[in-house]
């Protein structure tokens, strides 16, 4: 949390509310009433959410949201590298989510990692007669062709739930027959209101089928931790994991970036869970706390200010050995980070950024922009809940606009009014803003760059933000004639 309430010149609660009202004026009354509570000026002092969230998307407004399947396949299950993840149903969902999240994996594809697209490719006859038999056969085929896969997840697409297939009993029987974990995940896209329920359902299946089924081979140590909600986008985990190890901690499992099924299954043996993406994995942290007494801490690895605060908060939970190592790490990286800031801040100072992303970035990256001298003038999430917005309020300057599941129209209108120097959002938004001549970075995929986490990531982040905002190509947008 930031210590003092920041203000942006020219932005007041009144000006922000007027901007919101103006954007909604074109909506039919019913839609306007539904959308209005999801858009509000930030109330930094309250430290509480100023908007409603986690409600059904309003039909026809052009939301950026995905579905429960996307949350299960793309976010939670997909990154586990040593499992076969079957997109169970028609061909599309698996195809669209194949290789498009950038959760990087080590290992050999098709041998020890399975960064591929597995699907039951439902046809009309599977809808009519059901797909359970097909599922049984394909599980055998997958096990046969990929003998080193440690397990299989079965991720249901819409039709599976609608036609009443029983993937749970097929998975149970096949797990017994093939002697590997097979996890049925009822994450049909029509469930819930966004990706978020897919995260929750996936966490629940990890709770039911995975956790507590393995034990680490090596002896326990007081420094054993797990890194939760780190998906290794653009290699993020390959920055954060070594950083935590440099601090003297043993990172026994990463959930789920470059993840390994058996290590995830043994996580109930660690001493602390460190969570980065709270939205997608707080459920399992709470389960492990209740069931195994494992405490958890929510940290932020974006930008040197937040990294330093996070490492010190983490050290507080351990003995002096760790505290000393953490201070040594901070002392080592501080001058390196200072040099980066000195290089880029002069070119970025006072620039304004607007964000619309997923789980944690609309709040967690604000500090990194501020390290570079930038101000966040608007932020929002596709699929957050009230507890996310509570955590966001103190991070944002007062009275700046908060938007929950905004339509493309709203987002565009806000950008028109606020004239940001950078928009950080997703691929669907990217080219809209670039046509408008506004620099843009994809903040889901790090725009094919990364890592952005940890000290190693800040250098890349700073370079990318400078490159986006200060590229001379933006000067060419207006023709001289």
């Amino acid at each position, binding site marked *: 949390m930031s210590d003092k309430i920041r203000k942006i010149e020219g932005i007041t609660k009144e000006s922000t509310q007027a901007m919101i009202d103006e954007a909604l004026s074109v909506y039919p009354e019913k839609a306007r009433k539904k959308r209005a509570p999801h858009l509000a000026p930030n109330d930094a002092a309250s430290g509480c959410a100023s908007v409603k969230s986690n409600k059904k*998307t309003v039909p026809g407004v052009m939301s950026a*949201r995905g579905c429960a399947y996307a949350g299960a396949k793309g976010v939670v299950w997909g990154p586990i590298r040593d499992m076969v993840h079957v997109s169970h149903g*028609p061909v*599309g*969902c698996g195809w669209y989510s194949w290789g498009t999240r950038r959760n990087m994996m080590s290992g*050999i594809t098709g041998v020890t990692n399975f960064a*591929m697209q597995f699907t039951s490719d439902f046809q009309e006859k599977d809808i009519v007669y059901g797909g359970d038999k097909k599922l049984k056969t394909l599980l055998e085929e997958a096990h046969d062709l990929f003998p080193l896969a440690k397990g299989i997840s079965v991720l249901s697409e819409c039709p599976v739930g*609608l036609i009443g297939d029983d993937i749970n009993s097929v998975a149970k029987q096949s797990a017994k027959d093939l002697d590997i974990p097979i996890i049925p995940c009822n994450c049909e896209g029509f469930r819930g209101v966004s990706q978020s329920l897919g995260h929750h359902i996936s966490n629940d299946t990890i709770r039911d089928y995975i956790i507590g089924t393995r034990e680490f081979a090596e002896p326990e140590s007081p420094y054993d931790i797990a890194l939760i909600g780190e998906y290794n986008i653009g290699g993020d985990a390959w920055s954060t994991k070594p950083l935590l190890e440099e601090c003297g901690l043993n990172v026994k499992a990463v959930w789920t970036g470059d993840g390994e099924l058996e290590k995830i299954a043994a996580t109930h043996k660690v001493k602390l869970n460190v969570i980065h993406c709270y939205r997608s994995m707080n459920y399992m942290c709470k389960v492990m706390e209740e069931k195994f007494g494992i405490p958890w801490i929510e940290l932020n690895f974006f930008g040197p200010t937040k990294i330093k605060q996070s490492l010190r908060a983490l050290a507080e939970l351990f003995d002096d050995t760790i505290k000393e190592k953490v201070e040594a790490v901070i002392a080592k990286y501080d001058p390196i980070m200072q040099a980066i800031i000195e290089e880029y801040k002069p070119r970025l100072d006072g620039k304004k950024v607007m964000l619309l992303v997923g789980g944690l970035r609309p709040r967690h990256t604000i500090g990194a922009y501020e390290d570079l001298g930038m101000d966040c003038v608007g932020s929002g999430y596709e699929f957050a809940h009230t507890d996310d917005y509570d955590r966001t309020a103190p991070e944002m300057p007062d009275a700046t606009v908060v938007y929950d599941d905004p339509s493309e129209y709203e987002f565009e209108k806000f950008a028109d009014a606020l004239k940001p120097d950078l928009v950080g959002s997703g691929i*669907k938004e990217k*080219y809209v803003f670039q046509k408008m001549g506004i620099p843009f970075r994809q903040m889901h995929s790090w725009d094919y760059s990364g890592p952005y986490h940890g000290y190693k990531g800040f250098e890349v982040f700073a370079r990318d933000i400078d490159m986006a905002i200060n590229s001379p190509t933006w000067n060419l947008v207006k023709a001289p004639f």
Partner: protein
Amino acid sequence: MSNLLNLEVKKIVETPPEEIERVKNWINTEEYKEKNFARQALVINPAHACQPLGAQLAAHGFEGTLPFVHGSQGCASYYRSTLNRHFREPAPAVSDAMTEDGAVFGGQNNLHEGMENAYAIYKPKMIAVFTSCMPEVIGDDLTAFIKNAKQKKCVPTELPTPYANTPSFNGTHIHGYDSMLVSILQTLTEGKQVEGRCTGKLNLIPGCDFNTGDYREYKRLLKEMGVPVTVLADISDTFDSPCDGSYHIYAGGTKLEDAADSINGKATITLGPYATPKTFGWIKDNYSGKHVSMPLPMGIAKTDAFLMKVAELFGKEIPASIKNERGRAVDAVTDSHQYMHGKKFAVYGDPDYLMGYVSFLLEMGAIPHHILCSRGTKKVEKDLQALLDGSMYGNGCKIHMNKDLWHMRSLLVTDPVDAVIGDSHGKFAARDAKVPLFRFGFPIMDRVNKHRYPLVGYQGVVNMVTEICNKFIEMKDETCEDQQFELMR
């Protein structure tokens, strides 16, 4: 037992390195290939998407048209982001965000609310509705829903609202393209046929083609021929719009009045026989003028055939400028044939593209050794075989129908080729086989500007030959011994 289902607790076991090595080698064997080809249920790395994606592409090809997904919102996000990644352009589309209650009560309320909102906010001239899985499984009645929407005044009665059933558990994106296109044409041309009227224009249907350069190339060639044309559906400006500091949600597309008048055209040609059979069938029964279905003009011979057909239909001579253009393209291929002659290729993709790649390769004296079609009919197979039979370079080439890119990987490692042609998804198999992938087709998500370079027409031949031959030359430069490293190639 510490776990919920009382599953057995085991110690973590690391896979021994020699076992990893064994499997790594095993997946490249003939034995593995047989096992792989014996798959009955599991599809791995398919080279096709689902129907609604193609429907959305067709919708984007018309002026002021908002694609509208009746179904779960996640579907719309998937189609949009796929198109964004390929074109590096916006792909605005809405969904009516059906959820669990839709499964119980049907999706009519969502559709009505969605149409009303979309019309008010995005002010389209046409809303093109298509479905994803959920309404298809529960059996929503689109005809009634849309009729009711107009009765309830969710949208004006006169707003064109074509709609198509595009279930993802049937066919691929090309079938969705066809269903949406025919519905749009049926809607727009209704009551527009005028006895005795002829627009004097050619209606050109490029098919489910994701290359904006192709559309521009058709228009350029036809202008050169002096043949006025209506392209159905024209995505070239939609997905290749200028960056000038302003965003226009409907950046391009065939003018609705031109599309409406296309029923009075002088002639209609479809260049996507496999992607537009429904559309073409309906046009044959309903449109004035002549109707021709012919293959995508990839390669010299197929371009010749296309231009000669246009000339015949419109009583025109092919102008000297195009003859010269042809000559320059032939000059390019004769100058560079030695770098492609006898080279073996594996190709995969949609049937119309495949026919194009194969004719082009055979023309160059290259060998389309493995031809893999992710979803296709017996007719596609027969037509491909006929192409192979027409050339000595087709001898021994194999067609693999309804196979995926994991099958292709087995083919590449057991029966190697020199290069692969297909979309970005083939990069993994090509890398494992240590051969280059030439990115033609859709989607291309890992190279820039490829969709701006036509593959059709004579210019398309120059583009393909240049890319392919220069890559082979570059590989030689990069890998040869010092003593073989020469100035000239």
